[in-house]
């Protein structure tokens, strides 16, 4: 099954129910389907064909979902771009994907003006909210096209989304995701739309993130109403939960901590919430323990996955969040809650291996490998990185370290590589280092993640200066401000005489992490 069928099924079952509630506007399943059809016909008129890439640079909004389905209905590939990225980063992703038509919010058009002249393959740019010079107007495209269903030949194994994710080395990597990867997960885990059962899902995570896309597709198939917010803000989040009677949502650990710490939390009526899923970064034990105590009516789920796995591959379910039973059982559950990501879903295999790739026994720490039909076949146009990420027999190296206990629960033991994860966003140290190396006073640098109670980790730059040069930490952080997305900017700069290196000259990041991990506490 391809994902466009989700919308057809739900439209047949509950055509008049809202699929989108966004800033006072409501779109029913039937209307979403109609607008997506109109947009698909408009895109076909612009020359978009099977396999072409259509980009989207905008915060969460109804247009995001319409453009996804319009693109998918043509058999083309949807490319959501991180709206926090700076011009250089956006330019790289648009170029790597060779975007044919780009949709963008008007606030990004000024930035795009500086980079689009260099990207001649972009044939059309569509402003999603207002008409601007040199762009097509979104609503004009929709209203001037016919609502007929387009009849493209879409295979289950066709790529539907190209999503960019940070790697530990260099630029973001494109991950092509197939219809079957999403269909396999959604059909296997989500109840289909039901004319009687109504659920409302507040989408707190961005749609350029795999968790956002997965939640959107699950909502469409499940006949749920998606309540959209442009970006997460804690008071707005609480207000919307109350007003919209939201029943489920997904949060990254940093967001959940903000919710619990907010002075208005105790007065907020969050009684409509039934399910909170969390993931994308390690959950501090104190935060989830506090959440369970403060919201005992909520079922909590820890969902673990990556862009490369088309999202969730293991789940620590609601029962694992209820600390009851004998003392031995309670101890076991508390241990799981503190570090386990649960058990693999039925269509996923997990194994733990040592550095030579040999499988390890229960409770031995090694790298977590995953295999299954949903795992990506490889990175976009990058055989070298694909070869590093996957074994010859199809196992994905997740880069996470962990172990499996006798009951089949998978536990995390930190990253096996140098990736920094800040508030659920992956940061490549090398990408930050490339910017720092362009600073006229910096001789060499290594960027590491240091623990942070709020964000999980913060990027920290350890630098040496060129002979005779002086500068300040503030000046270096300011230098990065205009060159890197905000979340990637180093929050601390440490000046050293030299970086620790091994005999081959490689920087010993582990030693740096050990030396500076206490820095933020």
């Amino acid at each position, binding site marked *: 099954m391809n994902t466009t069928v989700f919308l057809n099924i739900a439209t047949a*079952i509950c055509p008049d129910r809202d699929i989108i509630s966004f800033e006072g506007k409501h779109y029913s399943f039937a209307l979403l389907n109609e607008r997506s059809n109109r947009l698909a016909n408009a895109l076909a008129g612009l020359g978009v064909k099977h396999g072409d890439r259509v980009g989207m640079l905008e915060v969460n909004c109804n247009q995001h979902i319409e453009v996804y389905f319009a693109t998918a209905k043509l058999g083309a590939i949807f490319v959501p771009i991180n709206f926090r990225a700076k011009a250089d980063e956006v330019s790289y992703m648009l170029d790597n994907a060779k975007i044919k038509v780009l949709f963008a919010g008007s606030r990004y058009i000024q930035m795009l003006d500086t980079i689009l002249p260099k990207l001649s393959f972009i044939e059309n740019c569509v402003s999603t909210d207002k008409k601007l010079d040199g762009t097509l107007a979104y609503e004009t495209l929709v209203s001037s096209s016919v609502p007929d269903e387009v009849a493209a030949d879409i295979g289950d194994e066709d790529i539907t989304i190209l999503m960019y994710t940070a790697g530990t080395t260099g630029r973001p990597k494109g991950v092509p995701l197939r219809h079957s990867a999403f269909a396999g997960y959604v059909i296997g*885990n989500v109840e289909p739309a039901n004319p009687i059962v109504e659920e409302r899902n507040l989408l707190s995570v961005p749609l350029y993130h795999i968790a956002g896309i997965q939640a959107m597709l*699950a*909502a469409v198939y499940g006949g749920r109403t998606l309540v959209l917010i442009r970006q997460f803000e804690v008071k707005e989040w609480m207000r919307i939960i109350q007003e919209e009677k939201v029943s489920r949502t997904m949060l990254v650990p940093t967001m959940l901590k903000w919710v619990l710490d907010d002075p208005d939390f105790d007065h907020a009526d969050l009684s409509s919430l039934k399910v909170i899923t969390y993931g994308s970064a390690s959950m501090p034990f104190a935060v989830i323990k506090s959440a369970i105590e403060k919201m005992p009516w909520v079922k909590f789920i820890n969902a673990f996955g990556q862009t490369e796995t088309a999202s969730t591959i293991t789940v620590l379910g609601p029962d694992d969040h209820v600390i009851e039973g004998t003392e031995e059982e309670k101890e076991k559950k508390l241990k799981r809650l503190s570090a386990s990501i649960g058990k693999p879903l039925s269509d996923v295999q997990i194994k733990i291996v040592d550095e030579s790739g040999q499988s390890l026994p229960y409770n031995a720490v090694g790298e977590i490998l995953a295999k299954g039909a949903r795992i990506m076949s490889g990175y976009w146009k990058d055989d070298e990185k694909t070869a590093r990420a996957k074994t010859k027999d199809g196992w994905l190296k997740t880069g996470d370290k962990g172990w499996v206990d006798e009951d089949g629960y998978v536990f995390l033991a930190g990253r096996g590589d140098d990736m920094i994860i800040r508030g659920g966003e992956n940061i490549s140290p090398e990408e930050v280092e490339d910017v720092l190396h362009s600073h006229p006073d910096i001789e060499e640098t290594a960027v590491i993640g240091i623990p942070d109670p709020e964000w999980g980790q913060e990027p920290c730059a350890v630098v040496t200066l060129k002979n005779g040069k002086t500068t300040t930490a503030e000046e270096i952080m300011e230098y990065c401000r205009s060159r890197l997305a905000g979340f990637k900017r180093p929050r601390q700069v440490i000046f050293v005489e030299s970086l620790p290196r091994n005999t081959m000259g490689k920087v010993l990041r582990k030693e740096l992490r050990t030396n500076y991990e206490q820095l933020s506490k």
Partner: protein
Amino acid sequence: MVQMGKRYKCEECGTEALCTKVGEGQPICCEKEMEVLEPKALPSSD
């Protein structure tokens, strides 16, 4: 009569069907009436 939004499964061959339009009669597969699939016990993670 089939129920809108319900999933049916053939006990013989494992085929599943989702009802998107209500009509007379029962879904049949392998010469047997298909069984209604009950909702999952656990909520999905999304």
